[in-house]
């Protein structure tokens, strides 16, 4: 499908971009991976496209370690993030498993966390679904194999962002041209507002993401389940960040991906891990708690068993233990 005509703005600075982005019908474009699909599908029809890629220089693209943590430029590509030794493993792993090498070379960190859901009802102009301001969620009684397990009553989309859940688990901060937003405040759950996934305001542009310095001492891992290895969306993913005191877990942040419209933090698992030594049996038991409140639809119940496995493996990986029992074991 061809897209509608639009004005194309090439700003030279964030200020110029922000000014242009405040105008009527303006939409910000970074890598364009998500946006161009939305435009071609007539889901988003911007009158004005503000291309951040025209802002030159390393400031928006670099990964740099500072006193307060690792600063990741909003235009840093997933490919660069995947090979960075400065960022925690969970984040690099998530970036490296997303999409395809071609897409990772273009997709940006800012665009990744600001992307819209991939629900096929949301993406189809045929269905006037609730998230688009329409009457209902067609996934509830429709084809919902890839849909949400939590907070899914009014809308069952899942977050498509690979980076969202590890950043959430790492307690990152999203920095924009207007403010600093703690990651816990950045995403908007369905129950709060069905029409958007982030708190970003018109004209607000992500400039960088800061992973706190404390994360350096943490053990982290990201694991995901997919149907195929090449270019697939996660069925369910888990990000685990563990702080150890000797051999026991001092604190934990555990976040699931692809199970709700936004990253889904499971404090029950975090609490279960606290003060414990991680073993295979214990990791499996801790993972059980994560899905206690799941509300499966007709075709996505399999995600519960699968999610428990993925979470168990992420916990073990973070703890540096073998994830898969070896043959005979």
């Amino acid at each position, binding site marked *: 499908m061809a897209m509608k005509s639009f004005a194309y703005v090439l700003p030279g600075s964030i200020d110029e971009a922000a000014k242009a982005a405040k105008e009527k019908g303006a939409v910000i474009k970074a890598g364009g991976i998500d946006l161009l699909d939305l435009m071609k599908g007539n889901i988003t029809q911007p009158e004005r496209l503000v291309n951040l890629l025209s802002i030159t220089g390393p400031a928006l693209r670099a990964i740099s370690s500072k006193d307060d943590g690792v600063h990741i430029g909003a235009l840093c590509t997933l490919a660069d993030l995947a090979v960075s030794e400065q960022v925690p493993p969970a984040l690099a792993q998530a970036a490296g498993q997303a999409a395809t090498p071609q897409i990772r070379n273009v997709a940006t960190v800012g665009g990744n966390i600001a992307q819209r859901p991939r629900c096929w009802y949301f993406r189809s102009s045929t269905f006037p679904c609730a998230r688009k301001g329409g009457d209902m969620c067609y996934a509830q009684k429709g084809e919902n194999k890839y849909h949400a397990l939590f907070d899914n009553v009014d809308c069952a989309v899942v977050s498509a962002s690979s980076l969202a859940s590890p950043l959430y688990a790492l307690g990152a901060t999203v920095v924009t041209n207007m403010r600093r937003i703690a990651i816990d405040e950045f995403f908007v759950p369905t129950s709060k507002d069905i029409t958007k996934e982030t708190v970003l305001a018109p004209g607000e542009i992500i400039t960088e993401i800061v992973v706190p310095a404390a994360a350096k001492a943490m053990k982290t891992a990201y694991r995901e389940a997919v149907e195929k290895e090449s270019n697939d969306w996660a069925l369910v993913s888990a990000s685990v960040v563990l702080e150890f005191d000797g051999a026991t877990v001092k604190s934990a942040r555990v976040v699931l991906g692809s199970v709700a419209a936004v990253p889904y933090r499971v404090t029950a698992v975090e609490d279960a891990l606290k003060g414990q030594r991680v073993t295979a049996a214990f990791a499996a038991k801790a993972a059980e708690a994560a899905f206690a409140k799941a509300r499966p639809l007709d075709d996505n119940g399999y995600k519960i068993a*699968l999610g428990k496995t993925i979470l168990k493996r992420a916990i073990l990986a973070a703890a540096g233990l073998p994830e898969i029992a070896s043959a005979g074991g």
Partner: protein
Amino acid sequence: MPKLKTKVGFRGFSKEIEVNIPDGEPAPWGLDAKLRVVGTDVPRVDGALKVTGRAKYTYDQHPPGMLWAKILHAPWGSASLKSLDYAKAKSLPGVKGVYVFKEAGRALPYHGDEILAIAAESEEEAEDAIAAVKIEYERRPVSTTIAAALKPGAPAVFEGEQNLKPAKLTGEQAKVDAALKGAAKVVEGTYTTQIQTHSSLEPHGTLAMFEKDGSLLVYASTQSTFGVKGDAVKLSKLPDSKVRVLCEMVGGGFGSKMHLAPSGMAAIELARQTKRPVKCMVTREHEHTTGGQRPASVQKMKAGVARDGKVVAWQVEHHGTGGVSQGGSGAANPTIYLLGEKVKSETAVFTNSGPSTSMRAPGHPQGIWAMECLLDDCAHAIGMDPLELRKKNNDDEVYVAQWDLGAQKIGWSERRQKVPGKLGGIVKRGLGMASSIWRQMGGPGAEVDVVIHKDGSVEVLNGAQDIGTGTRTVMATVVAEELGLRPEKIKVSLGDTRWPVGPGSGGSKTAPSIGPASRNGAYQAKQRLIALAAKKLGVDAKDLGLEGGLISGKGQRMTFEEACALIGNEPIRERGVRGKNYEFYKNLAHGCQFAEVEVDTETGNVRVIKVVSVQDAGRVIDKLLFESQMIGGVIQGLSYALHENHVLDKNYGVQMNADLNTYKIAGPVDMPEIVAVAFDLANAGNNCGMMGIGEPANIPTAAAIGNAVFNATGARVRSLPITPDRVLAALAEAKAAVKGKG
């Protein structure tokens, strides 16, 4: 008809048969024939053009003054067209013509059904005009799957018609019942397959233009230039001589591009209306919804097996759906094996889905999936090696030799789990296999001009298309063999209906039809060249032979080029005509595939490690093309086995994954090691001993993978695609069954 004896068979088995070859044809290559080019690695003659982007497809055609046409498609799975108003659309800037497929009042029984097409100066203007069409639909309830369409009171796909066609019955139930009673074990299971779309890289599309003299020129992305010509003649009502179809390159067809298609009709009608060239290419979305599909199937089966491994009874209740089309929804089950008393009912079911078209071995991947999995169930029930069981039910020497070769290449006796699923650990490996059958020796309906020029260059012409299988290279190879030249010296031109007739590429018949015609043409042209040389050398033509670029005999010699220099003003031009097939060793191409998989029993992920494909083609003409066909077939089969699924919303009949993002096709990281083993047969039957193998390459892959998953885990997944959720469910079912027993 000259009679002669020829040696047929393969390494390890041979016999002599008598063949009656048509007048004027060369003798078939026997088992001991010493061939220079045929059977070697001949690089694809148009390979460089393709990988450098210089190859021109229909999509690339852009004549001056060309208009773009876009089609308005039905958005719902079932609706009636209440009103249609395109007055405003027609008045928009750039819009030049409107062609209506369906007037108001018509039923639209599937998502994607064509309503009208608009031609405009640019693609964008055509799309804007489509968006401006005012249209009202009355949505109707849908039946999207076989199960849904069979339910009492299910919505009718066509008003006033049953969703089910009357069942076709073969065999006698009473005999099967009796045989089941006598069986040592009875196994049963319902195996299902999904709808698969062709997903050709180049979508359907046509460029049509009327010339000044009123004749019609059509560029089509097609696998049948002459088929499209026939359709265009009928539609345009022009005389045959006034319609010409061109197709230099095709970006895939897999059975979906045998006809003009609605996009072609729109291009021709709009070109006539606007007196401008009009190109109409289908979008990816509607390539999925309307471009054709492999029908889904539900096969409820029961089999009885004797202690010795002989299957004594085989019962199949089959339902297949080609969406809104009636044909092509059958399943090749049973086939290949003897299987004792057999009974089968076949029912075609209408569903609110786009029409099926033939797809790479129609009916076979579905039927073989169900049959080969149930055969494994039989072997498991009596504790027999699945390969042994197959040998008990088919002792054909070619199959047996191929099975042994495939087993050796995959490590069957060392690597297979003797007891399925019994190996410890979370990630388990297993082996499986399945066989294929395909009957295609080619036949009449192909003529090839072979032209030898005074400068020593050789041209070969045929009007049919090369859909990517390598037809050009096959022709170059066969002609090079006959003329004692290298294939790269032969210029092959295909894809223009002004040239000699050739077949549509369906049923794998192009190569075995055109190949022997090419050899006939080359053989006749060679006789004329030798006659010229003989006259010059002063020897009898029958004493001269042409080999390795030299004409020699009776102590005399002359190079190919020297002989060509003797050609007068008119080049040597001979028409090779494909004669009827004659006596053969085998009338079918045999094949089998062995798969090794690794299953993560906690996530349900299946990773295919290795696939060995053993296949005969009668005689393999070009080993590289053979491998390319096998590898492509295995990839498409693996993708069918594990990923591809045409998902229709059950309430609205809308295809939810009509793109290449959520319609999942296996990608580079999902690829196993693929070993293609050419099992060469000297077969006679035609002068090249050729059979077509474009289709069988794709037949047994899914079944081999399914059987390997069973061997690894002891859990049987009976529905395609084998996705993680289904593997986890099958594992849970297998665990429950063990507990139930214990």
